[in-house]
């Protein structure tokens, strides 16, 4: 009976200890970057292992890069930034939460299909959840929280629970005095979504036309160089029509 109790207790201890804290390690430091230990700020050094809930601050012209767990989730901390990092990890999932007090970070969250990943960055006014692999986040009292996606998709949620999904060149901007994030296409005003060439074709369409244009659009005997003149933006298109 005693043996059974011992085994149960040890398995419980093992199970709870498995859901432990991830190892937060400093990868690179440039300039002045420190972490808070009690009331003191201690300079960061490469390969230093930091405790759970650590507060990190960088100075002017200074950067630091930290690894958050064993599956290489990393954060590059930009100049004049203060963050607090919480990172937990088990064999089947990771749970990372970064509090961004001010400044900016670039988070890289490589996906592992066998591991359930939760990766959140919170500022005083909004939270972003990474669903892709890379994002650039900044926060300041004047401009608010800005999230740009470098790769994949992210979910931006403000304090009222309003959600925006951001990908590509869309941007999540949440300011203090607004109930809703600004238009996610605000960076694309008067700009283009994709590059187009002469005749209004995209690069893929242009390549397809060069290879298969004759077969797709008409008789090669009429126009041996292809159906669409790609040399000039104002090229004419000849479309033979056979009415029977």
């Amino acid at each position: 009976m005693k043996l059974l109790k011992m085994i149960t207790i040890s398995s419980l201890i093992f199970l709870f200890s498995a859901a432990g804290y991830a190892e937060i390690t400093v990868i690179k430091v440039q300039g002045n970057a420190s972490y808070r230990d009690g009331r003191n700020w201690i300079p960061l050094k490469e390969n230093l292992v930091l405790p759970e809930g650590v507060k990190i601050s960088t100075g002017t012209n200074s950067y630091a890069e930290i690894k958050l767990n064993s599956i290489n989730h990393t954060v590059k901390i930009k100049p004049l930034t203060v963050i607090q990092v919480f990172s937990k990890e088990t064999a089947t999932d990771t749970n990372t939460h970064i509090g961004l007090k001010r400044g900016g970070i670039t988070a890289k969250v490589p996906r592992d299909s066998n591991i359930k990943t939760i990766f959140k960055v919170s500022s005083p006014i909004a939270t972003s959840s990474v669903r892709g692999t890379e994002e650039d986040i900044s926060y300041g009292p004047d401009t608010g929280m800005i999230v740009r996606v470098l790769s994949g998709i992210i979910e931006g949620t403000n304090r009222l629970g309003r959600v925006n999904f951001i990908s590509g060149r869309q941007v999540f901007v949440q300011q203090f005095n607004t109930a809703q994030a600004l238009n996610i296409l605000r960076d694309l005003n008067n700009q283009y979504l994709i590059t187009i060439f002469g005749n209004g074709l995209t690069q893929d369409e242009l390549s397809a036309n060069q290879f298969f244009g004759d077969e797709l659009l008409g008789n090669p005997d009429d126009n041996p160089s292809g159906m669409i003149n790609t040399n000039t933006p104002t090229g004419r298109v000849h479309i033979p029509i056979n009415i029977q």
Partner: protein
Amino acid sequence: MKKIYLFLTAASAVFFLAGTIYAQNTGEIEWLAQIDKKPAVTYNDAVNLFVYQTGKNPSTFEQDSTALASEGIALQGYNGDTPLTKGMLSKMTAGYLKLEGSLMYNFFKTERYAFKACIANGIFKEDGSQYDRLSGPAMIEVFSKINEIRGEQK
């Protein structure tokens, strides 16, 4: 006895040197933590942060102002206790970054047009005034943008 003295002297030298290095490295971070709590910053605070930005450590207000004046950053006619406004910081920033983007600023190097040039470069938002006073976190945010722009320029 001599050996003990030598050992003690060496140990205290190492201790003091280590202390100096530690202070140099964390002084800026501790100063920033203090600035973070300030509801209103002064011209002297901006001077100090520009000194850190140029890769040096601040000393006295007079010495720092002279050093920044030679780089076209310092302002004239203000003492260290003057509350910092967006216009003042704009003029210092425009001098530091050699900002363009405002024709009027190229002709008249005033705080008003420096503020417009900063808006054109995304450093300040349009919905403010050159007379707005800055809090500690707001001043640090401007320097984050300066760091970003400097990074792009490099």
